[in-house]
């Protein structure tokens, strides 16, 4: 799979900007998503109250995450689920591969799970000899194309219908077309027998209810229901931050998530799964295994500013609102999680050294904060991360420049001198070269406001 790296965000972004087709696709998608979200939010007069409430619930859970996780596990296990704890990606993959191998599984169907992309689960399953089939249409498309997802909600949004049509013709033998309904029918047909033949179904989890041990998964296509109803073994993978306290809390989140993500009042299906079936002759899997993944999340609890990262409900609204994402798309970030939320959680999950450019790839405009259903203050988080990175990892030239800047700004005489020098130097400094590639500089002024001011 062609994974770009977050370490080369700058180069990735430049390449993305040169891709005319990509930019067209992004413009359409993000503006449509944005309009739909706006309309859907306006349809609920208490939208702002709901946001505050959701954030309060998340804050409550995160402050007592150990207790709520234990409650969730206790209740899920009492209903017949088996719960596994995975410290990191490798452990999660090992647990899941082990479960599948023990049951001699050959075919695994998956519904969309960002967490399993985070751990690169598919590669691990394939290495263990299993056929892995992504069943969400967007994920199916990128699986055929050997590409990573470019958006949290719509993974194939960077592709035009023509590109997808050509892909289906090449990979699936579909008669050439760019008709969306025909492409969808093709995918439906091709995946049906995979669902029927699958030994294992792997899903993500949107919300895990501590009070009842229920996992809640939302979708539009029906592939999650098929994945979690047909195979004998259902494995649900979730980050530890997905737990919410009470069943009734779903009212708030089920109002915020669909509207923020796709502009819908409700997605077509919500599955509420609590343990396993009561009788062997009942419908549904024989076994439910839930894998709880840490992989760096517990570290984020150490400060209120970073803790709010874990409130994210993966709606994707911040991506659509972000002027940077709108221009470069998801692949440039080199991470499973792109856009504003990706810029703050990728360095925290993968380590700052792997993603040091990302927190700086923002104009701090705050559009993300405005649309976030759980009011994550992403600009504040970006600044927090910059504060961690710059003093230690900023270039020597930059660190020196700011030390000098501070000295100049705290000395009136140096300040006056620098204003004069600056006006001369601005024409030649490297910063000016970066500026003047696309923009003119203002004409130099001979006097500053300080010079002009006379105390009357």
């Amino acid at each position, binding site marked *: 799979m062609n994974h770009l790296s977050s370490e080369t965000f*700058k180069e990735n*972004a*430049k390449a993305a*900007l040169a891709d005319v087709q990509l930019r067209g696709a992004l413009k359409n998608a993000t503006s449509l998503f944005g309009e739909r979200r706006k309309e859907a939010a306006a349809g609920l007069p208490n939208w702002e109250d709901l946001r505050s409430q959701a954030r309060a619930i998340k804050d409550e859970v995160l402050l007592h995450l150990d207790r709520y996780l234990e409650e969730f596990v206790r209740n899920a296990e009492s209903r017949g689920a088996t719960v596994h704890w995975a410290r990191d990606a490798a452990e999660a993959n090992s647990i899941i591969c082990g479960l599948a191998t023990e049951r001699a599984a050959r075919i695994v169907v998956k519904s969309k799970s960002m967490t399993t992309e985070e751990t690169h689960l598919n590669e691990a399953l394939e290495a263990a000899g299993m056929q892995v089939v992504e069943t969400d249409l967007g994920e199916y498309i990128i699986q055929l194309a050997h590409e990573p997802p470019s958006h949290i909600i719509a993974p194939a949004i960077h592709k035009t219908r023509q590109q997808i049509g050509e892909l289906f013709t090449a990979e699936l033998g579909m008669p050439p077309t760019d008709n969306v309904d025909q492409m969808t029918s093709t995918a439906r047909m091709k995946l049906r027998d995979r669902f029927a033949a699958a030994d294992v179904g792997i899903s993500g989890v949107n919300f895990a209810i501590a009070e009842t041990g229920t996992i809640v998964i939302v979708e539009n296509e029906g592939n999650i229901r098929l994945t979690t109803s047909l195979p004998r073994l259902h494995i649900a993978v979730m980050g530890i931050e997905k737990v919410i306290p009470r069943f009734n809390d779903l009212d708030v989140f089920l109002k915020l998530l669909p509207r923020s993500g796709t502009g819908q009042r409700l997605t077509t299906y919500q599955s509420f799964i609590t343990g396993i079936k009561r009788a062997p002759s009942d419908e549904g899997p024989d076994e439910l295994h839930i894998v709880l993944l840490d992989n760096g999340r517990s570290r984020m609890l150490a400060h209120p500013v970073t803790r709010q990262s874990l409130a994210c409900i993966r709606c994707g609204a911040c991506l659509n609102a972000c*002027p*940077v994402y*709108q*221009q*470069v798309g998801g692949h440039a970030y080199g991470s499973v999680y792109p856009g504003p939320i990706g810029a703050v959680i990728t360095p925290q999950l993968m380590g700052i050294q792997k993603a040091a450019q990302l927190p*700086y*790839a*923002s*104009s*701090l*405009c*705050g*559009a993300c*904060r*405005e649309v976030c259903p759980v009011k994550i203050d992403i600009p*504040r988080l970006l*600044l927090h*991360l*910059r*504060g*961690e*990175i*710059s*003093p230690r990892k*900023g270039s020597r030239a*930059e*660190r020196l420049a*700011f*030390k000098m*800047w*501070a000295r*100049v*700004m*705290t000395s*009136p005489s140096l*300040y006056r001198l620098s204003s004069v020098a600056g006006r001369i130097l601005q024409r030649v400094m490297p*910063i000016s070269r*970066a*500026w003047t*590639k*696309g*923009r*003119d*500089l*203002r004409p130099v*002024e001979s*006097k*500053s*406001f*300080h010079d*002009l*001011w006379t*105390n009357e």
Partner: protein
Amino acid sequence: MWTSIGVSSVGVLRRVGCEVEFDKRQTCCAQPAFNTGYLDEARLVARRFISIFEESKADAIVSPSGSCTAMVHHYPQLFAGDSKWLPRAHAIAAKTHELSSFLVRVLKKEDVGASWNGRLTWHDACHGLRDLNIKSEPRALIRNVRGAEFVELEHADSCCGFGGTFSVKYPEISVAILDEKIDAIERAGVQAVVSGDASCLMQIGGRLSRKGSKVRVMHLAELLNESSQQ
């Protein structure tokens, strides 16, 4: 760097009856360091800002910059946990206002007696809009400028792509974002774009000029200082 903004701001404030002082010792609000992650350096400069302005007996500190005002409002965050500087930071932040916000919300003035002939539009600078909730105030002030035909810009609240050091760290992305703004400005068919932040105006103006556009950029203070006496 843009003296007429300062001159115009003083002119407008005096015209509406304020007594204006300017402390020549002032340098910077510390935003560049704060936004780039150099917090120690930001604190050095912020302390100076606070110390200087504390000495003033003025009722208010007014800035013709939404981003600088927002920065000062962030001083409590910068000095969190510092029992000596935190209360002082709070005090200064409470007294600091952006120009249009000061005129409309504090002085309750929406008509400052300005006049300017032509078709213009307004760009919402991000910090002013999202940190300080400045949206209706500039529009109210502009609507009272005699002779000015105000047109609402499409996506007026979208970022211009400046973002401080972002504009030179990621110049290609900065300009790509900027071009969306430029397209909207061209579609609006205006003679001038007005905004409350010099950085946005440099960004927008720099691209307009590079593209040979006749559209000029104006700071709100410059517009409001225009009068029929000229």
